[in-house]
């Protein structure tokens, strides 16, 4: 048995994982919090992406928009990560072979790579372009990548139920 599958089975068989999996209400409550926190992540990150694409809030500097949304984005991400891990804990042995779940993890890795590249390249010179109504093409590309990848994460997450 591959080591990752073995770890998934250990989580699945743990008493906490079993408690969540067999619960009458906890599982569905965690699911709801997971979905709500994802709306917070996607909604706030989309505000920044749409601003860089020149579609909303054009008179406001990109850095101001970024500073306003980031605390909410990170809060949403922390909650969705924790609740997502709990849901995974409850179903880990069944998630291991799930192709939609694997796709979601790959997309999450890519969606994390995107801001890493963005912040170490074009965003380092943000003070030169923060007031522009339309951000430079590299920033627009990052914005489109962000919206596309986060959409993919949500679609793959929903598809877990159908694989």
């Amino acid at each position, binding site marked *: 048995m591959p080591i990752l599958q073995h770890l998934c089975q250990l989580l699945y068989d743990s008493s906490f994982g079993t408690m*969540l*999996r*067999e*619960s*009458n*209400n906890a*599982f*569905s409550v965690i*699911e709801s919090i997971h979905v709500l926190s994802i709306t917070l992540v996607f909604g706030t990150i989309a505000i920044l992406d749409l601003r860089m694409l020149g579609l909303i809030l054009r008179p406001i500097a990109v850095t101001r928009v970024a500073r306003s949304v980031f605390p909410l984005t990170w809060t949403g991400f922390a909650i969705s990560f924790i609740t997502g891990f709990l849901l995974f804990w*409850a*179903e880990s042995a*069944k998630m291991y*072979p*799930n*192709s939609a779940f*694997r796709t979601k993890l790959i997309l999450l890795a890519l969606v994390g790579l995107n801001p890493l590249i963005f912040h170490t390249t074009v965003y380092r010179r943000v003070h030169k372009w923060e007031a522009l109504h339309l951000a430079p093409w590299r920033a627009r590309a990052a914005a489109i990548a962000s919206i596309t990848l986060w959409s993919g994460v949500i679609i793959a997450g929903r598809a*877990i*139920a*159908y*694989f």
Partner: protein
Amino acid sequence: MLACVVTLAAAPAYAHHSFAAEFDITKPVRLVGKVTRIEWSNPHTYFYIDVADASGKVANWAIEGASPGALSRRSWEKDDLKIGQTVVVEGYRAKNGSNTANGRRVTLPDGRALYGGSPGDGGPGDNGTDQGDLPGTPIAK
């Protein structure tokens, strides 16, 4: 890696979904068998029964049901079904032809017949309420 992908494609549908996503309404099935395994799990419960056909050949069937919470609201609790007990299941076969069925009417060892479908899954008996309309026929005593 390729073997891994092939295994993925063959993995059974286990997670949360509507009735029509996995089951075929044109393939009703009635099964009587002994319980071999119980997964009292979210978002769907499963139990497995050994069913003998006319020639005596035994096949193991997976029976999918609603979540633990939904079954509990119908007074079906985890301990109501135990390994080795005999149950009667009226339901619908999986579209993929495997020995999997969605149990719509399950007659428990204590004689109670209960609705097994998920609330709002759009399958037979789903009437929008927690309880559902109990489909199938009562067992003649």
